[in-house]
């Protein structure tokens, strides 16, 4: 189906099913129960899963396939957001023109930045992309204030032209009348499921771009990119110029990032320069590595994982901890709360940093590798395949480009 092998079609169908059923699947605990705080089925969070999933899928096309580690992808996220908000200001709250502009603008940006940065590889490439992103961030804060509204962030004001606005148009982001922040709530027994327009809009786009990335992974182009990651020198010996391929990968992943940024502004009509800061670039690197760079599902899992735990961990406080440990003797409960205290609430970043270090140290393949290792332990299957990989001469390990 759709030019995919049978296995991939099944895979895609599973992904589609999971994505569409997310509002139900992420709401496993009934309302009002003690575990309800672990539910993630509310629109705001689900939208972020989908959007950052798109961002990470795009980043993975560059880093996972070619091995070029970009530390400046947040710039495209910012460009996307600004484009969408500008379209709100000039035309109307319909998100479509904005999203198209976001993808085009980020493609142009990526073409420019990529054309220059890709002249170098390795750490130099990382530094160059970082430099460009920091430049965009600094400019957005200072000189480009007329375009970006500086520290306040770009938003729609009542005196903006909005030439396509008619009397009946919705006054918040919508897609041909489907208003993003509207949702239907359905109560089933103790459960409450929220089906939000915004989430489904993001989810459908996410499915489309996931399908595209699946096609890229399986295409000759994708194989070429992987060849570049494995051994670029050998590629040039065969007389192949790898630059157009890496540039194409860079532009594609920039467009994904622009789309993600545009969607962020589609859910909440605001764009701020902090979206371009290099910590935001670092975040998408974290997501991709955590999930498993170079795998299809990994980056999405990583994005979901980070966003979910960011949300849950930052909400847990000492009182909730005490409630959990109420069965334990008092002294022990106190000690446990004291030990866990730095890692919860505002300490979420500490947990994230530690987790990230552990993953890089022990599980370079990310969650996906962990999953397949566990699966291998259960089925006892991968012993054979491991042996095949042990022959370094004939099966060189693909290494990242930063060498």
């Amino acid at each position, binding site marked *: 189906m759709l030019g995919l092998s049978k296995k991939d079609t099944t895979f895609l169908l599973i992904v589609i099913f999971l994505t569409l059923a997310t509002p139900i699947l992420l709401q496993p605990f009934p309302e009002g129960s003690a575990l309800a705080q672990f539910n993630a089925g509310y629109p705001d969070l689900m939208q972020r899963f989908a959007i950052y999933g798109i961002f990470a899928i795009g980043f993975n096309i560059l880093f996972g396939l070619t091995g070029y*580690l970009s530390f400046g992808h947040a710039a495209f996220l910012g460009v996307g957001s600004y484009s969408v908000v500008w379209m709100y200001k000039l035309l109307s709250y319909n998100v479509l023109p904005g999203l198209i502009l976001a993808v085009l603008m980020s493609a142009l940006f990526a073409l420019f930045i990529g054309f220059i940065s890709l002249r170098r590889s390795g750490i130099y490439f990382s530094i160059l992309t970082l430099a460009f992103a920091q430049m965009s961030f600094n400019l957005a804060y200072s000189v480009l204030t007329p375009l970006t509204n500086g520290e306040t962030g770009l938003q729609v004001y009542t005196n903006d032209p909005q030439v396509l606005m008619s009397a009946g148009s919705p006054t918040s982001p919508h897609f041909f009348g489907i208003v993003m922040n509207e949702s239907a709530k359905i109560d089933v027994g103790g459960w409450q499921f929220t089906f939000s327009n915004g989430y489904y809009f993001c989810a459908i786009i996410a499915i489309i771009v996931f399908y595209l990335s699946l096609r890229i992974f399986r295409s000759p182009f994708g194989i070429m990119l992987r060849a570049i990651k494995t051994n670029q020198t050998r590629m040039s010996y065969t007389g192949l110029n790898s630059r157009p391929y890496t540039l194409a990968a860079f532009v594609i992943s920039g467009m994904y990032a622009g789309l993600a940024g545009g969607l962020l502004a589609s859910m909440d009509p605001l764009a701020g320069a902090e979206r371009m800061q290099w910590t935001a670039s670092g975040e998408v690197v974290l997501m991709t590595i955590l999930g498993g760079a170079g795998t299809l599902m990994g980056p999405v899992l990583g994005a979901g994982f980070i966003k979910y735990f960011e949300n849950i961990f930052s909400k847990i406080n000492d009182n909730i901890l005490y409630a959990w440990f109420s069965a334990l003797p008092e002294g022990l409960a106190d000690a446990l709360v004291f030990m866990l205290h730095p890692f919860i609430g505002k300490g979420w970043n500490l947990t994230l940093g530690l987790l990230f270090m552990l993953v890089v*140290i022990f599980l370079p393949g990310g969650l996906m590798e962990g999953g397949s290792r566990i699966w291998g332990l259960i089925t006892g299957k991968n012993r054979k395949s491991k042996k095949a990989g042990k022959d370094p001469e004939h099966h060189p390990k693909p290494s990242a480009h930063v060498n």
Partner: protein
Amino acid sequence: MARGFVGAGFTMDAIILQVLNGLDKGSAYAMIALGLTLIFGTLGVVNFAHGALFMLGAFCAVTLQRILSLSYTVEDPTQTDFLGNPLKVDTPYIVSWFGDATGNAILNWSVPLAILFAIPVMLLIGYVMERGLIKHFYKRPHADQILVTFGLAIVIQEIVKYFYGANPIPTPAPDMFRGSVDFGVMIGFAQNEIIYPYWRLVYFLFSAVIIGSVFAFLRFTTFGMVVRAGMADRETVGLLGINIDKRFTIMFGIAAAVAGLAGVMYAPINSPNYHMGMDFLVLSFVVVVVGGMGSLPGAVLAGFLLGILESFASMNEVKSVIPGIDQIIIYLVAIIILLTRPRGLMGRKGVMEE
């Protein structure tokens, strides 16, 4: 041409002032970049946690200041506060131990004293970091090294935030250095033309001493000679029966100490906060790359050069011609240098090339 510049505000004193202004930031860049290059040159590791080491140094100064000002409270029955209760007087232990004059002097000089405190602490942190974490990453790709040290930087940053809070902590310099010096008079200008804060001058001199001693250490001691030999050809040095790993570990400690000292002395210039390291790290990496990966003189040169360029770019006369140039000058220079001189200003052949 020269006339035009002078007309636009580029008088001699303005130029000297901007050079001086650039020196203090340049000193910090140079010291951090020097440490980064040392680590890279010896161990071949790209250390994204180096900014965090700089920040830890600054917090050494904060910690020492807090330890020194630990005080006990006594009620002074002879005085009353505005509510009529006996006045509570906080007396730092240090004052009661050493007497008023000495005690207060120690408190006042807490930042310079923190140098003595920071050196062993930073050496230890560097040693632990290398043995505990970095050691296991020699054979891994640079991407993994970047990522794991990036994670470490986040962890260090969050720990500091947990203990010291998110707000900048003012850490004043000794009273003696708090004012400004009329630098122009010293070199033959009229009064009040070139005013420069004392502490920044101290910072520059301090960094010159530190950088000088690192170079002297590498050049004139046997230890330094072995390390340089190891940087050139690690394997051969190992074959000669020298335990080069141990020496490289010590160099990592020294690099950490250099970053830490840069941080200690920077505390009065900019009140330390938990993310100051990250802010400096990005720039320091740019500095290292501009100077040439693996070149120690290149790192120092590029540090000062970019510091001075940055301060020139923030002059109003320049900003009125190219708005916003002060925000991007460093990155712009880095991009131009990387594209025209791929190895950086003083990069050697064969370093960091596939």
